[in-house]
């Protein structure tokens, strides 16, 4: 996984709540067996007109000022619905590495960390302030500093955020979490041996 490094990037505004994973990547684009190439279909049904090719000029992310954005600022309960990791794959492939909202759905939230995406939870007031700053100055660049857990803006906002210590370390180092877990091979084997005695019917008979 790519390490997450401090950056200053355009922040795009998506003033919608309950953005579900069916919107992030509609199911017609989930048939591929690869992890790559989903960015072109990110928000497909909102992003393109009926011909499925022409960008919809009404859709916020199609604004020229938001092109190249790495930060997405969106309304509450972002990523609800299906567990599809195709959603964060599409978000990362499009170019975002940070999403700021007041809340995220559980599965989507975990999936982000597996794909070098930092989901940042802020308060309602903080979100409103960030959104207002983008609305007043589209194309504005925010700075995200994971190490110091801070989002700063040219408008003078400085927002501290919480992040689980282990997840932070994993993002900063681009850690392979399977490799981390396999360091605990001894404990996993011991658990399995004990479970075979305790609940033998869960295991194939020898």
């Amino acid at each position: 996984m790519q390490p997450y490094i401090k950056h200053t990037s355009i922040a795009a505004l998506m003033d919608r709540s309950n953005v579900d994973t069916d919107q992030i990547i509609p199911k017609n684009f989930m048939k591929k067996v690869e992890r790559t190439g989903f960015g072109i279909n990110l928000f497909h049904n909102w992003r393109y007109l009926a011909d499925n090719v022409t960008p919809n000029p009404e859709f916020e992310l199609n604004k020229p000022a938001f092109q190249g954005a790495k930060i997405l600022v969106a309304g509450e309960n972002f990523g609800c619905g299906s567990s599809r990791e195709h959603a964060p794959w599409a978000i990362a492939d499009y170019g975002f590495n940070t999403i700021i909202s007041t809340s995220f759905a559980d599965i989507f939230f975990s999936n982000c960390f597996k794909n070098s995406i930092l989901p940042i939870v802020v308060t309602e007031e903080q979100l409103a302030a960030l959104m207002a700053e983008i609305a007043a100055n589209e194309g504005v660049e925010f700075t995200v500093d994971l190490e110091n857990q801070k989002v700063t803006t040219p408008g003078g906002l400085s927002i501290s955020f919480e992040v689980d210590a282990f997840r932070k370390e994993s993002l900063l180092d681009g850690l392979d979490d399977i490799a981390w877990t396999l360091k605990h091979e001894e404990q996993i084997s011991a658990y399995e041996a004990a479970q075979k005695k305790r609940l033998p019917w869960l295991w194939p008979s020898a």
Partner: protein
Amino acid sequence: MTRTMYEKIWDANLVHEPEAGSPLLFVDRHLMHEVTSPQAFEGLRLQNRKVRNVHSILGTIDHCVPTKDRFNIVDAIAKKQVETMTANCEENEINLYGMNSNQNGVIHIVVPEHGFVHPGMVVCCGDSHTATHGAFGALAFGIGTSEVEHVMATQTLQQKKAKTMQVKVEGKLPACSTAKDIALAIIAKTGTAGGTGYVMEFAGNTITELSMEARMTLCNMAIEAGARAGLVAPDQVTFDYLEGKEFAPKGDDWAAAVEYWKSLVSDEGAEFDAVIELKAEDIAPQVSWGTSPEQVISVTGVVPSPSDFTNEVKSQACASALKYMDLKAGQNITDIHIDVVFIGSCTNGRIEDFRAAAELLKGKKVADGVQAFAVPGSFPVKVQAEKEGLDKIFVEAGWEWRDPGCSMCLAMNGDELKDGQRSASTSNRNFEGRQGKGGRTHLVSPAMAAAASVAGHFVDIRDWK
């Protein structure tokens, strides 16, 4: 110290809790389908890792399967996904109820049919509706594909402990109301984010009265309330359902297993982080009117207006939903006309669902201009329904009787709404475009869907003649 069922399962499955890092939770059963697994197998291959416990996995092919002419997958990319699943399972000797199996069907229908999930297990699948298996008192939840790979390689998940919420439903459910209506009523109360961070335990005498299949419908939709998982305490209903099934404990193990399962129920006085209560008497048949499963109202109600909501976000969401759904505030729910009716999915694709629908369809005909199709959740469901003659009732009423699959729940297989079409659907999500770009979905119970197919609009089935 008293513990909730969730805490007992967590404690029993905790492999290790390092000082720095993440707790590791042991995964007993891993369910799999073709859409969310190929990249996980590829990841294993690239790292030269192996599947740790093959016996813990059961797979099906369900999302991309056509429900007519099922072997003819015209979409080349979908066909490759199906072939990849088959090849991956063969290569790793994984038990797959694939395209040629007479046990094939929707993963969350097939797994219980074989008794593959037991109380107390930790169960996961790259699918949010894994919550279904909480009906057995198993901690069952959806994961992403990276975690699918992690489970295959390590048999564990890095997990954070969730908070607990008790959802208590007491009283007698009105005639014609079902587990689906309970689920929708709960989500209407909590909102789609109300359960975020929680595992919900459904309790109360209304819940204990439910059949296993009804409990599955209820737990299936826990994710729609944002909950990590739903749980129902195992009891005699659970044990009777499991006994004798293929993967259920046998012989002396059975008694030991039942003893263990009984010990899992939440202790008397165990504390939940949150409690919500509903009266069953208040739960009339429900219909969703918007583009989120929390936008739900009784069939006797009217479409709300944005001004009915004091919360600004909910008010905006209402306005945007009315626009997408092409509905007017104040319109009677029973005046909403539909074009397509779908009965099926991991929510409502079991035998009891088809029985309930057939009961209303006997001797009736589908309204002019309405397309209605029934998609059994699995081949065993289909075979059983045909044994009972239910297929004939559907067909004589003008319904199509199809082969199993996820079908129009998420419309990956070609069964979909056209732009602007409106459905009555027994599935679980009414998100924009879920059943086809521009399609409009109303979530209902199987009986409500059946009645709508005949009337051409929603009807209060309590008045059905």
